[in-house]
C-alpha cells in the first residue's frame, strides 16, 4: 500500500468521523489520534522517499520530492502537536461556555479537513489541484476563525474570506495563463498542468505569457503568505480565532502558500532566464519585513503582535528565496522549519496564558512565571528563539540570510538589520513584563499541555546547534531544486 494514501486518507476520514461523532468526550482524543495517524503515515512516506528518491504516485497526479516531503512531515508533525495542545485548551473553552457542542463538532471536523487540504496542496503534481486545495484551505480556516461567532470573529472571518478569495482568484487567472503557455508546447491532453511536465519543458514556455502568469500567481498566493501590502487579513484572523488555529495558520498554512510560490518561481526562472521572479520576491519580502517590524510596535493584543511577527518572518523567507542560490535557499528552508516550530510553540504558550488571564491585552497579562513557571518559561524562551537569539535555529538561518544579502544585495542589509532590531526591542519589551512582574491570576482548571511547547523549542534549539546529516542533504537537494 502507498503511504501517501494514508497521509491523505486519514485526515479526510478524520473530518468525516469527527463530524458524525460530535462533541462527545472522546472527540478531543480522537482528533489527536487522527493527527498522530497522519504523522506516522507521513514518516513512512518520508522513509520511502529517502530510500527511493523522488517518486510519482497515481499516474503522476502526485509527486513527492525533497522539497515537499520535508514540508509534509513538518505539517503532519505540527498538526499532531497542535491537536495535543488543543485538548486542554478546548476543555477550558468548553467549561467557560465559549465552545458549545455544535461548535466543538465543527471545530474538530474542520481541523482535520484543514490538514487534508494542506497535505493535498503540498503533494499534488497538478497546478490546478494546487489552486483548488489552497482555496479549500481558505474555506476550512474561515469556518475555524469564525467559530466563536462573536462580532469581532465574524468580522475577521469575513475580511479573511473576501480578501483571500479575491487574492486567490488572481492566482487562478495566473494558472489559466500558465496552462495557456503550456498547452502550446505540451498539447491539450493531460499533462499541461502537471508541474513535472512543465518543469521538463520550462525553457520553451513563452516568456510573455509566463511573466504575466507569475505576476498573477505571486499576488494571489502572496495574499495567503501575508505579504505586505495584502496582509490585512492575517492579524485579524490570528487574533480572533481560537489559539490552536492561530498556531496552524502561522506555522503551516503560510508555509504551504510560500511553497506554491516556490513551485511557480522554478518554472518562471526556467522560462525567462532572467531574475525577474527573484527580484519581485526580494522587493515584496523586504517590504513585509520592514512594515511588519514597525507595525509590531503599536500592538496591544498579544496574538496580533505575534501575527505581525509571522508576517515579518514570512517576508524574510520570501526575501531569502528571492536571493536564490544554494546558501540563501538553504537558509530559507531552514527558516521555514524553525519558524513553524517556534511560532507554534509560542502560540501554545500564549494560548494558555490568555486563558489564564482571560484577556489578550498584553497590559493585563502579568507574572506568568509566578503562577505557572512552565508557561512563563515557554513564552520567554519561545520569544527569544523567534527574535533570533543564538543558539536557536532562527539565529542560524537569519545569519545566513543576512550574510548572503550583504554579498548579493548589499543595499538591503541595513533595512533588514534595522527591522530585526526594531522587532527585537518591541517584542522583548512586551514579553518581559508578561512573564515576570506581579500577578493575582489563578491557575487553570485543566492542566495545560506544555510538552508540545518544549518539544518544539528543543527541536528549534537542535537545528540551531546541529543539523543532522540526512536533513542537511535533504535541504541541499531541495535548495538545488529551487535554484535561482
Amino acid at each position: 500500500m502507498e503511504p501517501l494514501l494514508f497521509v491523505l486518507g486519514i485526515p479526510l476520514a478524520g473530518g468525516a468521523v469527527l463530524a458524525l461523532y460530535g462533541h462527545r468526550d472522546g472527540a478531543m482524543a480522537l482528533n489527536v489520534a487522527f493527527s498522530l495517524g497522519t504523522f506516522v503515515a507521513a514518516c513512512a512516506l518520508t522513509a520511502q522517499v529517502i530510500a527511493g528518491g523522488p517518486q510519482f504516485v497515481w499516474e503522476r497526479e502526485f509527486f513527492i520530492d525533497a522539497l515537499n516531503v520535508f514540508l509534509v512531515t513538518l505539517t503532519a508533525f505540527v498538526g499532531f502537536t497542535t491537536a495535543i495542545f488543543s485538548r486542554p485548551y478546548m476543555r477550558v473553552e468548553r467549561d467557560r461556555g465559549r465552545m458549545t457542542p455544535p461548535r466543538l463538532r465543527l471545530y474538530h471536523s474542520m481541523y482535520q479537513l484543514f490538514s487534508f487540504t494542506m497535505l493535498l496542496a503540498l503533494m499534488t503534481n497538478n497546478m490546478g489541484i494546487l489552486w483548488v486545495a489552497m482555496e479549500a484551505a481558505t474555506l476550512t480556516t474561515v469556518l475555524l476563525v469564525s467559530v466563536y461567532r462573536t462580532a469581532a470573529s465574524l468580522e475577521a472571518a469575513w475580511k479573511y474570506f473576501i480578501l483571500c478569495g479575491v487574492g486567490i482568484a488572481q492566482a487562478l487567472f495566473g494558472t489559466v495563463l500558465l496552462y495557456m503557455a503550456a498547452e502550446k508546447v505540451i498539447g491539450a491532453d493531460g499533462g499541461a498542468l502537471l508541474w513535472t511536465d512543465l518543469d521538463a519543458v520550462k525553457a520553451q514556455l513563452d516568456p510573455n505569457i509566463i511573466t504575466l502568469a507569475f505576476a498573477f500567481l505571486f499576488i494571489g498566493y502572496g495574499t495567503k503568505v501575508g505579504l505586505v501590502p495584502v496582509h490585512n487579513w492575517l492579524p485579524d484572523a490570528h487574533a480572533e480565532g481560537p489559539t490552536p488555529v492561530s498556531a496552524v495558520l502561522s506555522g503551516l498554512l503560510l508555509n504551504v502558500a510560500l511553497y506554491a510560490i516556490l513551485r511557480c518561481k522554478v518554472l518562471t526562472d526556467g522560462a525567462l532566464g532572467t531574475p525577474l521572479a527573484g527580484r519581485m520576491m526580494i522587493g515584496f519580502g523586504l517590504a513585509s519585513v520592514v512594515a511588519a517590524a514597525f507595525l509590531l510596535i503599536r500592538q496591544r493584543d498579544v496574538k496580533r503582535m505575534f501575527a505581525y511577527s509571522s508576517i515579518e518572518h514570512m517576508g524574510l523567507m520570501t526575501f531569502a528565496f528571492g536571493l536564490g542560490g544554494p546558501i540563501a535557499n538553504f537558509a530559507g528552508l531552514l527558516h521555514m522549519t524553525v519558524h513553524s516550530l517556534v511560532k507554534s510553540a509560542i502560540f501554545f504558550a500564549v494560548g494558555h496564558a490568555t486563558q489564564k488571564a482571560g484577556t489578550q491585552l498584553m497590559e493585563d497579562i502579568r507574572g506568568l512565571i509566578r503562577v505557572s513557571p512552565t508557561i512563563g518559561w515557554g513564552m520567554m524562551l519561545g520569544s527569544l528563539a523567534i527574535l533570533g537569539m543564538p543558539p536557536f535555529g532562527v539565529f542560524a538561518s537569519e545569519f545566513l540570510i543576512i550574510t548572503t544579502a550583504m554579498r548579493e544585495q548589499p543595499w538591503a542589509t541595513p533595512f533588514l538589520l534595522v527591522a530585526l532590531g526594531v522587532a527585537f526591542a518591541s517584542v522583548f519589551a512586551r514579553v518581559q513584563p508578561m512573564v515576570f512582574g506581579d500577578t493575582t491570576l489563578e491557575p487553570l482548571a485543566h492542566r495545560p499541555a506544555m510538552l508540545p511547547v518544549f518539544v518544539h523549542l528543543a527541536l528549534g534549539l537542535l537545528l540551531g546547534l546541529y543539523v543532522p546529516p540526512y536533513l542537511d542533504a535533504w535541504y541541499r537537494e531541495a535548495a538545488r531544486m529551487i535554484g535561482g
Partner: protein
Amino acid sequence: MSALFSQFIDLLGAVLLLLAFAMISQRRILSLIHLFTLQGATLVLATSVVGYVTQQPHLYVSAALTFVLKVVLIPVLLHRVIDRLDVRWDVETLINIPTTMLIGIVLVIFSFNMATPIAQLSPSVARGSLGIALACVLLSFLMMITRAKAVPQVIGFLAMENGLFFAATSATYGMPMVVELGIGLDVLIGVLILGVFMFQIREQFDSLDIRHLERLKED
C-alpha cells in the same frame, strides 16, 4: 464558418462585458441577481459554442456544469437568502456612478492593452476574449470595492469567478476536468459558507452593511 463562430464568441464576450458594467451601476439587489444569472447563461452559451467549433466534447460537460452551478443552483440559493433576510426589495445608495463607470472604462482599456501581446500567441478561436475576461475580472473587483452591503459584495465575488471561467474557456479551451470540478466545488461551498455568514452578520450587527465590520483596526 469558423470566422463566423469566432465573431459570435466575441459578441458573447461583449455581452459579458456589458453585463459587468450593468452590475456596477445596478442599485437593486434583485436586479443584481438577475444580471448575475444572465451572465452565467451567456457563459454557458459561449462555452458550448467554443466546444462545438473546436470539437472538444469535454467543454460540453463544463458548460453543463456551469449551467447547473451558475444558472440554477447559486441564483436559487441567492434568492432564498435575500428572501429569508428580507432584503429582496432593498435599494442601495450608490454615490458617483458616473465616476465608477469612468474608472471601469480605464480598467477595460488597461486590460486590453495588457492582453493584446499575449492574445496574438493564442491558438484559440477566441483570441480577442482574453482581454474581455481580464476586464470582467477587474470590473467585478471594482464592484466589490464600491459596495457596502454583503449581498452585492458576494455577487461581485461570483462575477469575478465568471470572468475567470471565461478566460479559461476562451483562451485555452477549458482546464482539465478534475480541476474544473474542483473549482466548481470550491465555489459552491464558498457560496454556502457566505450565505451562512450573512445570517450571522445580521444577527450580530442587525444589518448587512459591511461598514459595521470596521472595528478591527490598528490602534
